[in-house]
């Protein structure tokens, strides 16, 4: 089991949920309003006067074999509209109930 944390510009919301559904990832948790900024490029998403846009974050826990496919799709989505910004991070889940 791996957990994937996806951070993205709010505008991606519907597309990402759609993507997860298509990939048969039913479960996820979402934080609709998240502040943040990229390490290298991209506009900060701070929800302030200077940087008014905001990010959202979704965490989903999927079986190991689904991770690569999902990341690929996410990367493709990011490449399509680079200026909005989308990042995903994967880490291992040790136990669940």
């Amino acid at each position: 089991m791996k957990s994937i944390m996806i951070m993205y510009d709010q505008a991606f919301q519907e597309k990402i949920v759609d993507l997860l559904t298509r990939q048969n990832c039913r479960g996820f948790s979402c934080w609709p309003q998240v502040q943040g900024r990229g390490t290298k490029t991209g506009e900060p998403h701070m929800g302030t006067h200077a940087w008014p846009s905001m990010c959202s974050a979704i965490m989903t826990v999927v079986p190991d074999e689904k991770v690569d496919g999902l990341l690929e799709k996410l990367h493709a989505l990011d490449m399509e509209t680079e200026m909005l910004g989308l990042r995903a991070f994967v880490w291992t889940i040790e136990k669940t109930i």
Partner: protein
Amino acid sequence: MSLYEGAVKKPIMTSLIFLAITIIGLFSLSKLAIDLYPDIDTNMIMVMTTYPGASAEDIENNVTRPIENTLNSVEHLKHITTSSSENISTVTLEFEYGYDIDALTNDTRDKLDMVSAALPDACNTPYIFKFSTDMIPILVLSVSAEESQAALYKILDDEVANPLARIDGVGTVTIYGAPQREINVYMDPQKMEAYNLTVEAVSSAISAENLNVSGGSFDIGNNTYTLRIEGEFDSPQQMNDIIVAHSPSGAAVYLRDVARVVDGVEERAQEAYTNGKQGAMIVVQKQSGANSVNIARKVKERMPELQKTLPSDVKLGVIVDTSDNIVTTIGTLVETIVLALLFVVLVVFVFLGRWRATVIIAITIPLSLVASFIYLYITGGSLNMISMSCLTIAIGNVVDDAIVVLENVTTHIERGSEPKQAAIHGTNEVAISVIASTLTMIAVFFPLTMITGMTGVLFKQLGWMMCVIMTVSTVSALSFTPMLCGQMLKLQKKPSKLFLALYKPIQNFLDKMDAAYARMLNRAVRHRKAVMTIVIGLAVVLAAISYPWIESEYFPANDNGRIGATIELPMGTRVDKAKLVAQALEKKWRDRYPNYFKVINYRVGQAGENAGAMAGMSSNGSHIISFNMSLVDSNERAVGLAKICDEMRADCKEMPEIAKYQIMMGGQQGGGMGGQNTAEFEIYGYSFTETDQVSHALADSLRNTPGVVEVVISRSDYEPRYVVDFDREKLALHGLNFSTAATYVRDRIYGSTATQYREDGEEYDVRVRYEPLERVSIESIENMMLYSSTGDAVRVKDVGEVKEGWTLPTIERKDRQRMVSVSAVLADGYVLSQGVAAGNAILSRMDIPQNVSVQVAGSYEDQMDANKDMGTLFVLIVILVFIVMAAQFESLTYPFIIILAIPFAIVGILVLLALTGTNLNIMSMMGGIMLAGIVVKNGIVLIDYTQLMRERGYGLIQSAVKAGRSRLRPVLMTTLTTILGMVPMAVGTGVGAEMWRPLGVSVIGGLTVGTIMTLIYVPTMFCIFGGVGIKRQRRALKKQRELNDYYVAHKDKMVRDRTGKRVED
């Protein structure tokens, strides 16, 4: 879910809600009344009291002054003006604006009840008359007649006036110029004396015979019958057979033996001529709140039908149709609005370069405008010049909100967002600034709703409408516009070739402009002091150069194609002579401009006793000619109304037989709204000789002043009169008292109304008096026989004297003092301030008696009041705008920088007014006031973005230049939409355009200069203040650091250990 998110996600609901608003708006539009001005809350009440037979001075002392003294205590009274003339006293109460006139009327009525008992017995009960715009006739019909002349009144009353009065919305229909039927009983004095008969006795004999009496009911068998005793005359000639007395021999004396019964018309009546033909006039007034245009249309529709029922020689025509002017004026404004809309859409297309975005804007503008019709309909407003120009002004402003939203949504889409997501998040980001910019506009327009006075009347509706429109436009910008963006906008992946070919040059031009502006700005912010010196210096110089060229006036003159004229010949001139003069004038005017006059109508002669209230108010007399002319529309004429009036005055001046003349541009007196500029001076003083002297001296000097075309003294000339001076002792000796003697004389000359003769449901007065031929000499009065209660007869000359003298026909008073006003009408091109200055100069040279005081009044007073109101309003608005901005920026510096744009805008107004030769008047001032809100918007946009750049970490100068470059297009776009929206107003030539041209000119001038200056000085000032701020920050940091260093170095000396000892110790 926020407003915009909900709107974007529910497009059907959103569009249907706005569709519903549009439908209700259009429905309201179809129900709206059309008028020239908004409903002017009346602030005047007139109290008219008739005292038949009393002279002006009697009226003044016995009627006017008691009423005046009592009514003076009514609350909120501004001025009390009275005029006492023969038979009638008129007290006009002018109240402060903004109070409920019905409550004031009730107060007045209560006070009047108190005074009524103190008035002379013969005096009729005073009646209250409320003024309102509804009283202005909406339609004046002409009637020409030949054979039917004698019966004209009856014909018109039955066949025209009554059917017209039944039309929905028509208030009163009055007939002028057709004498009413009257049964005259002319007594022969010699025969009366022979039979010891008096007019009173005959009068009561006639009245006693003309009677129907109900005799109660009685029973015959099983039935009950009512009993009537009928004695009313079936024909006037029956009166001849009345026995009025018995001769000493016992023979009956019939009325026919001593008198002549004439079934005719009233003796004194006005004659009306239309286009040279005698006839009558029918004046149609509307009910309050009714739609003039609709009524005029309905009346005109009925006319052909009514014409058929009239005798063949009676012809109906239209002299004045106020609705014509209204319809064409509003038509011109509709054109203006459509043009403004086109311009705005064009600007949006050029700047955005996207047809979908342009379509969205084009849909949202009318939506906000249509919503304002709902407001108008709910509040009972009308479509008028003010509300229509409000729409024109609004067009340029309502797009701003939509543009801001649209631009940001587009940016999001270009960054790759889905249109729907872009619409939600894009709107979310700018929602606050959209609301803030609306608040600045509301800060400008809301105070307009609070002003009172004449200016209040004009601006109240404008203020509310703008507030409604701005609010609706903001709501639509935050819901409807994002919804449309989500539905219609798309990422433009590849523009079409045609579009590129067309738009590329524009694109290049805009890019070059951006670059040039950035370069210029870069230089400017590096030479801040020099730039600010140049900018301020330039503004001061421009203002100083243009200010002396601007003249001020109250209200722009309105060319409504109507002229009224009152021509007075010397007192006592006969009607025939007056008619000749009128004909000569008509011919002269028609020859000069053969195609300009639609109708020339004039009235001559004295109005009869029953002529109605309107005739009582306007002066009339055998020597007075009243003209009423209507001309073709102003855009079909090469010569303006003011010039035609000036030429008419020159004609009157040339004719030696004319004693006085008054040409009234616009058809009514005074320069208040839309008339010619008139400087009015009021001369107060009790003594007639002193005030006459001053008024004539002033009038003579004014007449010789260049620019003054007509001077009118309100006090008319002395009227010749005879006074019967009774000797009270002699009267008493013959058992008579003064009032009996006076009544005797009055009944013989003026007549005594014996009874009413009824025919076909109409009542006609039966008046008993001397034969006309027995009323033409002093002797006839001297020889009148007076009878005492005991039957003793004595002649007037034995108990009194008939003296010749002069009397004032009208005594005017204002604020309880006798007053004469001298008004000077100024020629076309001269303004009020010049006239008042000239008058004041003359007065300062004059030797004015001690008891006489002179005051400038009339429209100059109004103008001064209005200027004061406008000044207060302006200050209030600037403060409110400042507050809104300070709240938005959470700073006092930025609003200060932005508000500086207002002085620059004022300079712009002055420059353009001077260049176009437009006067400074209420309309141009209104433009200035609106600018306070519009011009700061640009500053807000610039400062906001510069501040944003600073927050993103750019340096001061870089922020200013980058922000300037990035915001140039939005600033230019919103400014151009407003300016181009106003262009049709400023250059319009349609009917009524002269009214709002000053408004358009001042907004364009102010906004152009204001925007150019804003684009230069705002970044510069931002850098100056920013620089100062940075230096201050650095100083503070340095101080802090030094303090810190000092503390660290001396820490040991200052800090105590736990035992309380200094560490060092």
